[in-house]
């Protein structure tokens, strides 16, 4: 077992007691859940919030006068402020609840993009984007005859700022960038990106799906115009996403989906819209999900996002060191933990990532293998897929050790060519 250079800060044993799923056995061994970049597990505080809502307060919101409707509306609306505070925003009016980060980005591409992007305009992305921050812009570009350009990546796994500067030009209207890469772990210098974008009058959308769960955030410092993230990647339920927009921006935007809740007046020929943020929340929202997401935000606030970050940095440093013991393993992405989050992608010579994942699953270890919805990045790395371990507040160094041992077994299986004699 490796010694950590710096101890993890969090009391993992105590935290794990809050996560019922973590005490289960998988394939006869204790579950080691290292697929947190895909989705995190939920503490009982969040599960309890769902149960409590359905057992005491369930009603449709916003239009009801009866007691349950008032109660549900208050609980739902209270989460807007919590979501705003989580990212250092001060106005809950600037928070729209969506289904997921993907929908948040699509909302901007439609409700802002369709009105502001014209033929020949340019949208700048990076080659390390998740498909959710590529496809909506490709679709927008196709609708409008606009052009999508990409900033590249350095051999060390950083965003190539020179290529970003080259990609951004006078026709650039939007620069949409991932905050923390779900494959490389790289944390991008958003404020610097924003300076480059704002200099040509472009707006900046930050895909915060992998930063909101892991980093202390302040959208004012980041100086971005939109910030998108997902509840399910930060202890909250599935089916809830957030879009934050710089003050006043939502007011200038057309609606995205039409229906109940988002209107003021409906007449046969035309309608007028409710005030923001409700203008962007058509139909009955995921009321229970949003309320339980509030419990997740409370949980993270109680731990403190700097402690979350410190714990993950410690685990990630430990893991990057420990993984060196696996023969033939090479890491992707920045080696300096100060520049990266807790998603660690790697390759093992001669073993395809899917085989790696299947074998470590046999030891109860859940990691992800594949293109991670980042096919453009896979092409940059010149691999069809990677294996990825990703950490969160409940992961311990001991779990990293289990991963490393399981990976060694994978190497063993493949080097002997016969699993029956592998151990």
């Amino acid at each position, binding site marked *: 077992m490796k010694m950590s250079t710096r101890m993890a800060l969090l009391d993992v044993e105590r935290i794990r007691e809050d996560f019922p799923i973590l005490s289960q056995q998988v394939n006869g061994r204790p579950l080691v859940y290292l697929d947190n970049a895909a989705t995190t597990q939920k503490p009982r505080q969040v599960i309890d919030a769902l149960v409590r809502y359905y057992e005491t307060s369930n009603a449709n919101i916003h239009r009801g006068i009866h007691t349950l409707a008032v109660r549900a509306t208050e609980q739902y609306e209270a989460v807007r402020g919590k979501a705003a505070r989580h990212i250092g925003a001060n106005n809950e009016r600037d928070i729209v609840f969506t289904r997921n980060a993907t929908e948040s980005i699509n909302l901007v591409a439609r409700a802002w993009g369709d009105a502001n992007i014209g033929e020949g305009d340019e949208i700048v992305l990076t080659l390390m984007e998740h498909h959710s921050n590529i496809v909506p812009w490709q679709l927008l570009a196709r609708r409008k005859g606009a052009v999508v350009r990409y900033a590249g990546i350095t051999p060390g796994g950083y965003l190539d700022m020179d290529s970003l500067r080259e990609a951004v030009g006078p026709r650039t209207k939007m620069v949409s960038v991932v905050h923390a890469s779900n494959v490389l772990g790289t944390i991008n210098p958003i404020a610097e990106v924003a300076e480059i974008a704002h200099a040509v009058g472009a707006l900046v959308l930050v895909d915060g799906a992998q930063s909101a769960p892991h980093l202390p955030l302040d959208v004012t410092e980041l100086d971005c115009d939109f910030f998108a993230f997902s509840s399910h990647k930060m202890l909250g339920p599935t089916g809830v996403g957030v879009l934050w927009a710089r003050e006043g921006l939502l007011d200038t935007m057309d609606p995205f989906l039409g229906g109940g809740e988002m209107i003021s007046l409906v007449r046969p020929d035309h309608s007028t819209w409710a005030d923001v943020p409700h203008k962007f929340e058509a139909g009955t929202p995921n009321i229970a999900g949003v309320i339980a997401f509030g419990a997740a935000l409370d949980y993270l606030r109680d731990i403190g996002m700097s402690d979350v970050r410190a714990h993950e940095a410690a685990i990630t440093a430990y893991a990057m060191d420990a993984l060196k013991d696996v023969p033939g393993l090479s890491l992707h992405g920045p080696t300096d933990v100060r520049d990266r989050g807790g998603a660690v992608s790697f390759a093992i010579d001669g073993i395809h990532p899917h085989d790696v994942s299947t*074998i470590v699953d046999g030891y109860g270890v859940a990691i992800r293998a594949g293109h991670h919805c980042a096919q453009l990045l896979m092409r940059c790395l010149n691999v069809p897929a990677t294996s990825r371990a990703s950490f969160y507040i409940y992961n311990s160094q001991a779990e990293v050790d289990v991963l490393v041992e399981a990976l060694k077994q994978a190497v063993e299986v493949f080097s002997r*060519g016969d699993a029956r004699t592998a151990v």
Partner: protein
Amino acid sequence: MAMPEPPFDDLYREVILDHAKKPRNRGRLADRTQHAEGMNPVCGDEIALDLRVAGDRIADIAFEGQGCSISQSSASMLTERLKGTTIDEAARVAASFKAMLIAGATPAPELGDLEALHGVAKFAVRVKCALLCWNVLQEGLEQARRQLARGGT
């Protein structure tokens, strides 16, 4: 740390790993009569098959591709098993193989070495890896049949 033996006896059999590492009939056929390809978008595995059909017989067969040990060994074993068989026999083998993996049927004798892949059936997400080349094959056989029907080669 002591790692007990993992449950892979059924999956990573010696013959599978051997084919994955030393694929047979890998490459292209200059004189192919049929070509078919496929990919599995979820995991990115790719297989391309070249067939040279003479009369109703697969005179030669080769594959190219990339992906996991299961998809590559399945393709390698496919080519080994089917080289020289008739189109009809190839179709029967394909059906037996699919029955083994999808329906969990006990391996038919005609599968030969391919029987080694029957353990994949227990790994639901890996089944599609093993099947990829067989789906591609079926497309190639279709082409060959159409050509035969038109009276070609």
